[in-house]
């Protein structure tokens, strides 16, 4: 029962988050009618509030699943380290959308699982936003999207060779014969895809309110195909170059840091799983 409810909360929160991002693509003129334009004005605030609320609900559920002191401490420290990387990124301008924060989020989710990955992604963007002065209406969307990066990395980890020997036994196990090249290749493709996807997702939150040529702007009721085509034109014209640098940066960093970081994180995962249970009776 508890697991079903937990899964329902995950699914519903994520559905609200996804709807907040994609509603311009599915909104029909029959639904908006003459109020279509009005919707385009009140939607940003309503949507931001709903995204914030569903994020809050998801956080309550995630933290309510008995988070141990070790997890809390490790999450806090990893978030701090990754936030410092974002600080470096803000202080030293990097080319295009290059950002070193995604690789630690991806690898943390990959090693520690989807729940940890989501929390790591969401908290990293929150803390780095606080320390770099990046708090604004965009923050809930960034937290959601980076949470998804970590969460999906957890799923990737589950189907890879890494997670099975550790989670199956629930404890330490030496992972000697892993195909690192394959794992890093898969992670690199994953990092490249998220480099583009993150930008495409974050764009959607302001795209309905952005001005520009008709063939690149959102109009209520244009239909799914036409809206997608317009968004694609907008994305190519404004963001693709920027996001390609981020995607390429993720690949370079994963090739460079992937193996040693996974080694370090997996070693600590084994140490963190070590528990002493007193014998009863």
């Amino acid at each position, binding site marked *: *029962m508890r697991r079903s409810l937990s899964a*329902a*909360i995950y699914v*519903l929160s994520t559905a*609200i988050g996804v709807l907040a991002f994609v509603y311009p693509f*599915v909104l*029909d003129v029959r639904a*908006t*009618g003459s*109020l279509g334009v009005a919707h385009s*004005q009140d939607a*940003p*605030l309503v949507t931001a509030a*709903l995204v914030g609320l*569903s994020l*809050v*609900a998801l*956080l*309550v559920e995630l*933290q*309510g699943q*008995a*988070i*141990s*002191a*070790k997890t*809390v*401490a*490790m*999450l*806090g*420290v*990893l*978030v*701090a*380290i990754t936030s*410092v990387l974002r600080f470096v990124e803000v202080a030293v301008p990097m080319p295009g959308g290059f950002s070193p924060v995604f690789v630690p989020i991806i690898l943390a989710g990959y090693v520690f699982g989807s729940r940890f990955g989501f929390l790591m992604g969401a*908290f990293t963007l929150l*803390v780095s936003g*606080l*320390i770099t*002065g*990046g*708090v*604004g209406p965009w923050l809930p969307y960034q937290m959601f999207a980076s949470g998804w990066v970590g969460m999906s990395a957890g799923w990737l980890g589950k189907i890879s060779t890494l997670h099975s020997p550790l989670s199956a036994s629930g404890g330490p196990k030496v992972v000697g014969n892993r195909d690192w090249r394959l794992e890093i290749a898969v992670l690199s493709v994953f990092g490249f895809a998220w480099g583009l996807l993150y930008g495409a997702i974050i764009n959607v939150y302001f795209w309905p309110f*952005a*001005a*520009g*040529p008709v063939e690149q702007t959102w109009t209520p009721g244009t239909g799914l195909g036409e809206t997608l085509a317009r968004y694609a034109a907008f994305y190519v*014209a*404004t963001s693709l170059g920027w996001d390609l640098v981020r995607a390429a940066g993720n690949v*370079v*960093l994963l090739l*460079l*840091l992937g193996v*040693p*970081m996974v080694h*370090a*994180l997996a070693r*600590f995962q084994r140490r963190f799983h070590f528990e002493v249970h007193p014998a009863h009776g």
Partner: protein
Amino acid sequence: MVDVRAWLLWALTVLVVASSTRNPFYVVLLLLVTMVVGATCAPVRGRRGALPSLRFAAVAVPMATLFNGLTAHLGDTVLLRLPAWLPLLGGPVTLEALAFGALNGLTLTTIFSGFAVFNQVTPVRDLVRLTPRAFHEAGVVLSIALTFVPQTTRSLARIREAQAVRGHRVRGLRDWLPIFIPLLVSGLERSMGLAEAMVARGYGAVSDRAQPLRTQAFLALGLFVLLGGWLAFLFLPSWKAVALGGMIVGVGIIVGVLRLAGRAVPRTVYRPYRWSRRDTLVVLGCGLVLAVILLPLPLVNRATLAYTPFPRLALPPFDPLVGLGLLGLVVPAVVATGKSRS
């Protein structure tokens, strides 16, 4: 000093106003108000004045102007024509399209300026204290992360120095490997020690428990009603009233669950917030602005909030009452000046 909750309302009000108007007179007025408040209220140490906003404007306004001017081929005043074979860019470049682009850049700058002021005037520890009690664990993670940021920065400098002594030089990305991995490992070692210290102080005794089934059930119900209401609101216009009701009920259930979950977490505060008369004045100022922008008040011409330079650029309308109303956002600067005089 103005309370962090009043500042939060102030920043949200700036966002609401900036999202509600494209009239350049109001947008510029709002931008000036945020700059004045920033210059007056930000702590002297670390005060950056209007510089961040001007730097942002120097990028955002020309970029938005250029982008819109080159890609939006609307408007009567044609300045030049680009060859039609150029994809996206081909066609007339109009004064109206350039003006609308500049206006969008200005609006973005205003939102940025409002939140830049918010970030400057609110200490991070006050923001963390706003974390609701239901987010006890999340608050602890946040506190640990914020506490460890300076330590991590110091560790980074120490590791760089140690590696430099050994002859290591950072020339490319690959050279960061011997710096980043020790930083990660030392951080994780510290987290082990921290976790043991937390357990020794009884952390697990109260928080290492799953939340009640009832909380989960109501949370799922609230999200379900909210999602259903929102979907109906977007796609079933004839059910609009029911849909809105559903959304409100869903939000109510979620907020209720958060309150109930928060009650289970006892929290003591060493130095409680003190709500002062200054905070009330700031809230009243924001209330005035929101009333002028959102409510159909007599004598106030809210239609002047909407403005478009198309099809031909013309002087935007200006209602002095709306302009005066927007000055409600300058209250934090007024109370800060009054305090420094007294």
